[in-house]
């Protein structure tokens, strides 16, 4: 756009002695110059307004009301009632706790494994292209399909994992019934799906690390593990931070995997004893199972605030690091 606009103003705007003066045309032209860029970006911002900002604000408005999904045209003002109710609900705190533990159980191993995988793929391997595509395959699989298969694998009576454990002499585990076992099972699904994706992001960042750094390190006698720790990781730190933030957002919003893991009868409640009910499921349970849309909206806004807090923390950490570097 730039290379079109710049020469257009320079020679075209000051053409000497135009035969018939057509001010409206010039004005139109000038207006075009100024407005066009905005017009070009307008579709995105219109979309964002319509499908991003408006729903966000409207959800906030709904969260201050008592709304029944079945009679959603009637709204009753409730002030912050939905929020105080939520803070007094044990299930909310339970869901917050579960979201945190499942988030840690899935994000930490996932990112560590992705780092390792990316490091290995960064070497000259035979069939590198194949491995790279293979890693992305889980990401391309639909959540529903993957979760349904994993649910079968994690079955209590006839699941393959318990069958394998049985051969090792370990008792069958009621994966869905137990608290830790169900959270681990869900984390495995999440990890399986996202490890390859993060590994590719790391790989891209690693390939941008100048090769002479490794050469220098090798000359100094650093082995591969030391190279990884002292060259690779510091070089791609911004990328690691990025994936941590993105995975953190994903973990906060975790919904599809636990819902489908529990199946129709207990998916919405996150298990018989709510043992794997995440915030997303808690929202769904209130809004689409008990039909309290106002309460669900309050949960949604709380989740947004949590995400903003995580973002602020992230920003603060970056600032502190920079300040330290500067001093």
């Amino acid at each position, binding site marked *: 756009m730039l290379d079109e606009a710049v020469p257009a103003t320079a020679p075209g705007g000051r053409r000497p002695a135009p035969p018939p003066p057509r001010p409206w045309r010039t004005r139109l032209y000038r207006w075009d110059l100024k407005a066009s860029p905005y*017009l070009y970006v307008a579709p995105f911002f219109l979309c964002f307004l319509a499908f991003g900002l408006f729903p966000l604000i409207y959800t906030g408005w709904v969260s201050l009301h008592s709304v029944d999904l079945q009679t959603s045209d009637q709204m009753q003002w409730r002030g912050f009632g939905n929020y105080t109710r939520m803070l007094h609900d044990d299930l909310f705190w339970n869901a917050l706790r579960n979201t945190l533990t499942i988030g840690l159980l899935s994000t930490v191993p996932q990112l560590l494994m992705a780092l390792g995988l990316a490091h290995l793929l960064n070497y000259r391997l035979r069939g590198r292209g194949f491995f790279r595509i293979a890693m992305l395959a889980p990401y391309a699989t639909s959540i529903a399909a993957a979760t349904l298969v994993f649910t079968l694998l994690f079955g209590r009576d006839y699941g393959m994992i318990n069958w394998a454990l049985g051969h090792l002499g370990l008792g069958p585990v009621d994966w869905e019934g137990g608290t830790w076992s169900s959270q681990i099972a869900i984390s495995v699904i999440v990890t399986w799906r996202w490890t390859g994706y993060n590994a590719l992001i790391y790989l891209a960042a690693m390939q941008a690390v100048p090769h002479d750094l490794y050469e220098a390190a090798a000359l100094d006698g650093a082995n591969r593990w030391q190279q990884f720790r002292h060259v690779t990781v510091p070089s791609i730190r911004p990328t690691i931070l990025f994936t941590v933030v993105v995975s953190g957002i994903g973990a906060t919003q975790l919904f599809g995997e636990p819902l489908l893991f529990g*199946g129709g*009868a207990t998916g919405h409640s996150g298990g*018989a004893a709510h043992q794997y009910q995440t915030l997303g499921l808690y929202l769904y349970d209130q809004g689409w*199972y008990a039909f309290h849309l106002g309460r669900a909206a309050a949960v949604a806004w709380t989740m947004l605030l949590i995400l903003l807090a995580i973002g602020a923390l992230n920003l603060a950490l970056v600032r502190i690091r920079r300040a330290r570097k500067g001093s």
Partner: protein
Amino acid sequence: MRNPGTTPSTRTAAARQARKPLPAAAVAALCALLVAGCSSSGSSSGTGTGAASGGKVTLTVGDYGTFGYKEAGLFDAYMREHPGITIVEHTVQQESDYYPALQTHLASGSGLDDIQAVEVGRIAQVVKKQANKFVDLGTAAGVDKGAFLPWKSQQATAQGGAVIGLGTDIGPMAICYRKDLFQQAGLPTDRAEVAKLWQGDWAKFLDTGKQYQAKAPAGTFFTDSAGGLFNAVVSSSPLQYDDASGKLDYKNSPGVKAAWDLSTSAIQAGISAGLKQFDTPWNQAFANSKFATVACPSWMTAIVSDKSGPANKGKWDIAAAPSAGNWGGSFLTVPKAGKHQKEAAALAAWLTAPAQQAKVFTSVGNLPSTTGALSRPEVQGAKLDYFGDTPTGQIFAATAQSINPTVIGEWDGLVKDALTNGALLSIEQHQSDPAKAWSTAVKEIDDKVSD
């Protein structure tokens, strides 16, 4: 940008000429694209059918589980009789997935099917809160209100007298049991003798369970789940989750209390397989012969035969339950948001008419809700191939006669779910203390049913 080699002067002239209409055109195209994208996802039902201008009409039917229309060939028969009509069925496996989706579609007024099924546990809620969103089928052409069992049509009648749902089936309940497992455990296998073991008292059913468990074949349990037992006992109680006026009163209901005590004792006695009904492991347990009995409303026979598979054919039989009750059954409704309400009402009326109900029963076992169909010889004398010589028609039609109509309320489905898939299952899975599980469930239910 694309071609940096072009000389500036010619390029500017060309660009100036070309650029003027371009932004407008681009924006228009984008807007058109967006609008098209929105509208096509917004109104899924009825679009692309060429409207009802004498041409072809596509009717969509939304339901869950096994309604049996396809199995009985009814959709094909109707399309043959009405060449202008195409029927598409949208089936969801579980009702607990189906109902929230239906509510979302009703709230937004889009994405609805022309005919939507509603389960009996939900119908009171729909009747109370959303009657204005459905067509009054009582006055629709081809509907004979008097054909249905009176209590059945009463459940779908709104305050002003509008009938918003036509009854499909009812769920008179018996007990399905495995003859081979009973024999191995030293229990009688003849259905009359089996019925005598627990006749008249659910406590005797529990005693039989203990007897079975003492000599049970390895790895098997007497019954599938405490939740199923709970539902069975509640279903046979005159008052269930609501008081006589239809107000939620599950805490003081003698039926709920009896069912709760009985099913928690069943867990403690170790006679339940601890499964979650309608879940995949439960399905697998049928095929693997993991339990000997399951509370069997008439529609359950379809599930039993389907999930147990050909290997277990002839091993199941059906005996009368300790006391008669109705568990489940559904209705067909026509949302007002539909584009072809008249055609949809006609189809719903036809599907729920006695002749068609009888056909559904003989092919999948859903028991008719019309008195005419119940007394038909093909229903009375029906036998399901899978159950051998068991006189299924006779057993269920006889039970249907002795059902006491009960009061249903708007929260029945939610309360039932919280108690069976919540509290009872948590006792089975986590060995929670029953008293604590009950109070936790009560707290949760009270919170959900309040505004």
